[in-house]
């Protein structure tokens, strides 16, 4: 099922563009920073230099090479996106299916927790926590993931509750399969398309939040991030530096989000077109 699925997603025009863009950015941000001729953190005396052969996107207010910072910032976003995407998807699948399989008090406890934690927007709680830690990327991943599984767990739980009623699950149980075997052998494989969707959703959220936190300045100042680049560049909007400082950063951030959004959109279109249950996770 998942194989057929992964093939059919490519038929969607949006996904093809999104995947192409995604692969390009992935290469750029993973390999790019290692090829740079400038240390992105190193300051110099040539400040506010316009783009040149040496500094492709010029330099900023303390003489740092903007192009190097752009790529390194991309790497920060990529690391946080992958980290948060993977951890929060795993948490969502574990807790969501646990709630659905165990039922009773475990179900009540987990779903109540989800309801409660969703009342106040996550970003507020995340800012509050990070303000005390000024976290590095690793800690940031943990803090964002800690609240990143909530909506996913709801969707996974619903999905499992529906799947559990199918005949082949009853058959498996009748033959003496344990709860865990039924989940692992019969239910989990059917969750793969949903997991892919949750992964993308989580990555998108993570890029949003990472940039937002850096933008308002609650993360470790040594972390190079698009968010902090934008907030720094914004201070000089009256100079013409915005054209090669602010604009490329905003563009890169938008392009990355676009890639993820397109893949997700194609995935959703495909799943609703192939007659499957529409994946319906509230947009973060």
């Amino acid at each position: 099922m998942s194989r057929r699925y992964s093939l059919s997603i490519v038929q969607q025009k949006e996904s093809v563009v999104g995947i192409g863009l995604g692969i390009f950015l992935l290469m750029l941000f993973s390999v790019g920073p290692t090829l740079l001729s400038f240390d992105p953190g190193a300051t110099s005396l040539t400040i506010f230099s316009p783009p040149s052969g040496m500094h492709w996107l010029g330099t900023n207010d303390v003489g740092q090479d903007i192009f190097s910072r752009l790529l390194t910032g991309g790497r920060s976003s990529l690391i946080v996106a992958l980290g948060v995407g993977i951890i929060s998807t795993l948490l969502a699948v574990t807790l969501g299916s646990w709630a659905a399989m165990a039922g009773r008090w475990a179900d009540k406890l987990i779903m109540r927790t989800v309801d409660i934690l969703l009342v106040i927007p996550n970003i507020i709680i995340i800012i509050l926590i990070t303000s005390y830690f000024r976290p590095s990327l690793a800690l940031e991943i943990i803090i964002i993931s800690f609240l990143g599984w909530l909506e996913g767990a709801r969707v996974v739980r619903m999905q499992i509750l529906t799947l559990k009623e199918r005949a082949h699950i009853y058959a498996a149980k009748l033959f003496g399969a344990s709860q865990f075997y039924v989940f692992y052998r019969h239910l989990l494989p059917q969750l793969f398309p949903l997991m892919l969707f949750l992964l993308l959703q989580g990555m998108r959220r993570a890029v949003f939040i990472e940039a937002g936190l850096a933008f308002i300045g609650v993360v470790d100042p040594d972390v190079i991030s698009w968010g902090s680049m934008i907030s720094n560049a914004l201070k000089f909007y009256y100079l013409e530096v915005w054209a090669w400082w602010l604009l490329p950063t905003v563009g890169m951030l938008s392009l990355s989000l676009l890639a993820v959004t397109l893949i997700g959109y194609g995935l959703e279109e495909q799943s609703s077109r192939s007659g499957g249950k529409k994946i319906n996770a509230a947009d973060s």
Partner: protein
Amino acid sequence: MKNKLITYLAAFIFLILLNFFLPRLMPGDPLLAIYGQEAALTLSEEMKKELISEMGLDRPLPVQFGLYLTALLHGDLGVSYSLNASVWSVVGRTLPWTLLLVGSALILSTFLGIILGIESGWHKGVKRDRWILFLVIGVSGLPNFIMAVILLLVFGVQLGWFPLGGALTPYSGWTGIQLVGDVARHLVLPVTALTLAQLSETVLLTRSSMLGSLDSLYIRTAVGKGLKKYRIKYGHAGRNSLLPVTARLGVSAGRAIAGALFVEVVFAYPGMGSLTHHALLSRDYPLLQGIFLVMALTIVLANILADRLAFRLDPRLRED
């Protein structure tokens, strides 16, 4: 209904617990953590002693928590050292601006979102639908502060149509209609940024419930009766599609308030978002905690109001 109230109450208590425990569980001197390094260093020994006994920092945690709650119940949010004023007075000054910004954006995005959602659902699969979806998803796919930066660069810096920041022209001495116009002019860009960021959810929600409505029998009846197109579209199918949007209004309000945190910073709008930014930069923790507490309270109240509204509009909710 009662269930929901308990959930809101629990969420609020969760934030209070977070506010209480976060600084006290940090390594090192709790007084430094509660007031922030910078502020605590300027305190004299006597003031430190006074604060320690006031908050009971030399006593066990349950006693401290009791003192903390008592202070909260008296409306005492502490003192902001960076602004030299009580947190309550500072937050109270900024809250109206944020409410104005968020309220306007919420009304606009709901209104626009419903219309676009109805149009998009009615014309499902046709060019118009695809364009609306493409624009809405593309535009709302960006973080709100990116949206704000783009609007600021284009309409503020390049075209010069709108002021670059603030909520009022300082020392203008305007009153009456001129003052209102001035406030409105300053409001345009931030509200647009926030509205665009909020829009997609309402559009998608209205669209999907519109699709559901269009399949139902009462629509076929309406078509059979020979009613005019716009009456079916807005009067029959559209009106029913309002319900899910109303039901999620509380969530949207919360999200808009969180969005204002960032949008206000871009436009230096003097609301709670800019105040949060100030609190973060000066590490003024009592101020930060106070802001988030008031924000949480506002969000919970908005949720309760939205629930009541949905309850009145949808008789089906009353039956459970």
